[in-house]
């Protein structure tokens, strides 16, 4: 069977030969063109016969060529001309065999281009080209008969119908058996095939083998059984056996088994009578030998119920759908990333090499991104153990670095769902250092309120890196972001974050400063208190008032000096009269008698004509009165 592509290439053969014939006819011998076209034909022929794994046969019609049932290169003038030329020589078939040379082609074209009647007188084109040394291009003249002989010798094996060849082969084999029994056997198949030119020989052998396959199996086996029967000289029917030896291995193995059963011998002894190539021999040996292991040993049930299997396979249940859904769910990128890391860890367990360590590192980012922090933590611990081995230290370091990919960490942190995982995430983030801390900060900003406590816990597990990362962000961030971060530090409640929050107190956006004050209030430390107090002197009255409100809420006397400092500020440039009035009210309420001197100074201010400063003075006066009264009362109590 010829594939479509080979068929197309086969058309090229005809076209190339037609072109060569035309060139030889039209151009003088001195021209390079005939040689070039002949060479092209040789090349195309070689390619096609190689692809077809043997000779290619064309049927020659009066004005066309056919390949199988298909007309090829139809309507091309040169091809029509070549067909007409060959047909004039009564050629019915053209066979192109592998190994064709330019010399043979030239000889062929020379003969074919000669006058047809002259060629006929010399015995026909077939005889003439054989005489000219052409062996890989053959022609079959228009007749099914190869000669006037009867039987196989009278058939053209390259074109006669297979159902005519088969019985003739059978008769030849029977004839061999008879003649061999009585003396010297006559190998008619060998004679006929060997009598053909080499281009046609292979084709003939193939067709005889094909004809044998169209005989019934018993007859086919009988042919082989007859062919291996030695004659008086010990010779076997080599012609038949050579044809049979070219059968394909499984076909031949079965035939040998049947023939062996017929002759009472064994297939192995028949094989020894065939001329087989090493490949064919090996294939046959494998086919003929018994199986080393039985099917039962391979777990095959002795009897199978095909109907039951079919019913079972197509039966549909709800359980099946559910089970299938579960199985399909294992196709999940996050889960696969975790599997990948687990697998690289198993490989690492088998033997630590720089490569196996790096593979762990390569698998880590995806696992981190999938939120597989417990496994990643274990992997990091596994790597830690290996740092003792100097030759692996570089690889370990690279692997650890690989786990610290910002995007992966962020993705993993955003996927966090529970506290135990958060603890592992904290370890992984801590191991990632600055990158880890920054990822936590980023995750905080991107997370919902529900998830933020988990991230605070992670921050708490790596406070210094976390606070430092927040500080960097506070310095660079936009107001909304910085306000959020200030709140986060407040929840963290770590005194080390006061310096960062102090930065926020100086932020140009008021809402940031207010958030920082709120955060500082939650940190129970002297430093935070000091920072809030410092905010009292902030030029923005709202900020200072917020600080004041915080102080008021906590009722801290320690703030009094700072409050007094605010009162003493020169007010010409600022509009903080309301704040100062509130401070006066607060120190009065607190009973801060140490404020009396400052208050008196304000109370004694006479050059006040505007309303607000006047209100301030009046408030100071009232406060001084109340505080002095309180002081006096205290003094009396002491006495």
């Amino acid at each position, binding site marked *: 069977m010829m594939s479509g592509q080979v068929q197309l290439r086969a058309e090229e053969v005809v076209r190339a030969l037609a072109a060569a014939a035309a060139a030889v006819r039209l151009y003088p011998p001195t021209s390079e063109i005939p040689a070039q076209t002949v060479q092209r034909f040789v090349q195309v022929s070689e390619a096609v016969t190689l692809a077809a794994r043997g000779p290619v046969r064309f049927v020659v019609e009066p004005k066309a060529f056919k390949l199988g049932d298909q007309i090829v290169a139809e309507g091309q003038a040169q091809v029509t001309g070549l067909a007409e030329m060959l047909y004039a020589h009564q050629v019915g078939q053209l066979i192109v065999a592998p190994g064709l040379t330019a010399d043979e082609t030239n000889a062929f074209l020379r003969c074919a281009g000669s006058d047809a009647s002259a060629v006929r007188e010399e015995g026909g084109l077939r005889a003439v080209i054989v005489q000219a040394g052409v062996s890989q291009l053959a022609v079959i003249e228009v007749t099914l008969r190869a000669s006037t002989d009867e039987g196989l010798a009278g058939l053209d094996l390259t074109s006669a119908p297979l159902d005519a060849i088969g019985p003739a082969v059978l008769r030849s084999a029977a004839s061999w058996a008879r003649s061999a029994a009585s003396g010297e056997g006559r190998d008619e198949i060998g004679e006929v095939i060997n009598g053909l030119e080499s281009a046609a020989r292979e084709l003939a052998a193939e067709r005889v083998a094909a004809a044998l396959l*169209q005989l019934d199996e*018993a007859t086919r086996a009988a042919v082989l059984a007859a062919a291996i029967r030695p004659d008086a000289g010990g010779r076997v029917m080599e012609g038949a056996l050579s044809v049979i030896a070219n059968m394909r291995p499984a076909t031949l193995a079965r035939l040998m088994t049947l023939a062996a059963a017929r002759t009472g011998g064994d297939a192995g002894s028949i094989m020894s009578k065939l001329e087989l190539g090493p490949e064919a021999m090996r294939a046959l040996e494998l086919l003929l030998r018994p*199986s080393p292991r039985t099917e039962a*040993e391979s777990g095959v049930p002795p009897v199978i119920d095909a109907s039951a299997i079919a019913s079972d396979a197509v039966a549909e249940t709800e359980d099946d*759908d559910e089970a299938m859904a579960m199985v399909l769910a294992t196709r999940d990128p996050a889960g*696969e990333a975790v599997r990948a890391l687990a697998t690289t860890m198993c490989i690492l367990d088998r033997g630590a090499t720089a*490569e196996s360590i790096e593979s762990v590192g390569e698998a880590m980012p995806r696992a981190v991104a999938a939120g597989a922090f417990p496994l990643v933590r274990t992997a990091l611990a596994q790597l830690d153990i290996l740092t003792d081995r100097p030759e692996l230290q570089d690889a370990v370091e690279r692997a650890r670095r690989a786990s610290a990919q910002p995007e992966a960490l962020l993705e993993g942190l955003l996927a966090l769902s529970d506290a135990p995982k958060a603890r592992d995430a904290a370890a992984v983030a801590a191991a990632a250092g600055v990158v880890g801390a920054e990822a936590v900060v980023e995750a905080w900003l991107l997370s919902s309120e529900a998830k933020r406590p988990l991230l605070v816990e992670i921050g708490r597990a790596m406070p210094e890196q976390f606070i430092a990362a927040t500080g960097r962000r506070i310095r660079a961030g936009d107001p909304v972001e910085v306000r959020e971060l200030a709140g986060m530090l407040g929840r963290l409640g770590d005194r080390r974050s006061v310096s960062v929050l102090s930065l926020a107190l100086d932020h140009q956006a008021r809402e940031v400063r207010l958030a920082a004050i709120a955060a500082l209030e939650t940190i129970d430390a002297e430093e935070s208190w000091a920072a809030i107090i410092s905010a009292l002197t902030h030029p923005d009255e709202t900020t200072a008032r917020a600080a004041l409100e915080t102080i008021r809420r906590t009722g801290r006397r320690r703030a009094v000096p700072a409050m007094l400092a605010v009162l003493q500020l020169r007010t010409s440039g600022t509009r903080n009269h309301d704040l100062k009035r509130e401070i006066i009210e607060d120190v009065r309420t607190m009973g801060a008698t140490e404020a009396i001197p400052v208050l008196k100074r304000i109370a004694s201010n006479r050059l006040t004509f505007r309303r607000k400063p006047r209100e301030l003075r009046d408030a100071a006066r009232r406060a001084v009165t109340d505080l002095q009264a309180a002081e006096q009362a205290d003094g009396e109590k002491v006495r």
Partner: protein
Amino acid sequence: MSDSDTGPDRLETPEEMAAATSAASRSPFSSAKRLARAKELVRAIAVAATNAALYPATHPSVAQSMDDLVAAVGGVIELGFEDVTVNIYKATLFVEDHVLPEESTTYGKLVDDLLARGISAITFSEDFARNDAEAFVALMGTDGVKDITTALSFLDQRGATNVAVAETTTLADEDRGEANKETRDKARKQYETGVTAMRDVETQVKLGKVFEIGPLQSLVNGLLETLFRDPAAVLGLTAIKSHDDYTLNHSINVCILSLSLGTTLGLDEESLKSLGLSALLYDLGKVRIPEDILNKEGPLTADEWQIVKSHAAEGADLLKRIQLMDQMPMIVAYEHHQRHDLKGYPDIGEPQEQHLFSKVVALCDAYDAMTTSRPFRREIRPDKALAVLMQGRGKAYDPSITKGFVAMLGIYPMGAVVKLSDASTAVVFRVNRDDLLCPRVKVLIDAEGRWADEPAILDLRIIDRGTGSHSITISECIPAADAGIDDVWEYL
């Protein structure tokens, strides 16, 4: 049916293929309830035709049977069809591509009456209504219509726009067309390119070099493309077996089987590419196992067995640095012998269900290995190999996937060589989804052992109306070599 334009094997996308072959819709009439509607449709046609022949058009029975026919058509349309075709192929009734063996006998007269009018297919569209039913019933009630042209004009004159009749059925795709042959040849070329690519990989790995993944990705992409265009052309390639190049052919066969199964499971294209690559490389670790152990004919010693078992981890080791869209090749190499019940190897610390791909590859690996001749045993017939897999459900193999695999391949898969009830020998070239036991076959060798010049094609679903059973059945499945057949693929 909606896919009638493209034919059953011309599905365009994985989603379409999945829809056509997934467990839920393997055949449109795979469940008893759905099948009952198909049967009811045929019954309604037969009753309407009988009543039309017995009674005048005004008779209440005729009116009732027309209403029943409209209802029966609606019942099938409700299952998701745009239209539904009742086919007659070799005197056997089908609704769409689903054979109805009993009805073929019971309603033999309907079959005869339709064929007498030159009709082999009747298509009812979703708007089929009473006036269409009247026209169709009238057609069946008249003796004057003897050919399809007259039948068509009869319906046309009566304004029947939602019922169409045809002289031939789409079931009669006797053999693959020229275009499909081209696809088949292309697929074979891809297969051979794949063997070469895998040989290169093997060589590089043996030399301790890094191999190129690009050619393997191209191979998988090519196979997928062909699979989407012509699934049979690709699945048929698994009939190619090689003793000498067992490892190479085996990995490509496993890749093809896995891609086919993955498609029926409804995986998307990216997943299929990953699965395909994993299936090509899952056994790569065997290059680190001495060949004399792998090919040992006798039983393995405990030490040898340990060495063989190490190939899974060795494979994962070789694939650990391959970073693509995922690391599935490494995972599948590591997991493919862990078994569904996790009693396999290598040991895993914390039990974790095998990945879907590992399960798919394990199943395809087992099937192809069993059906290929090995130094230590002959090949096992496909039906027996499938029986082994079904027996291993819930143990070595995932139960659902195994069922899907068998439903995909059929009991007698493409390329299976079977002995038929008439003693002839045939090769299965197409599996019928509606009847896994009755595929379409090509008869290669007659009962006396003569090889056919042109193999005859038989659809084993065809019913002998005389006996009411299948005309020809499969007696047994036999190894191709036992039948003397060398390259089964040539006949697919």
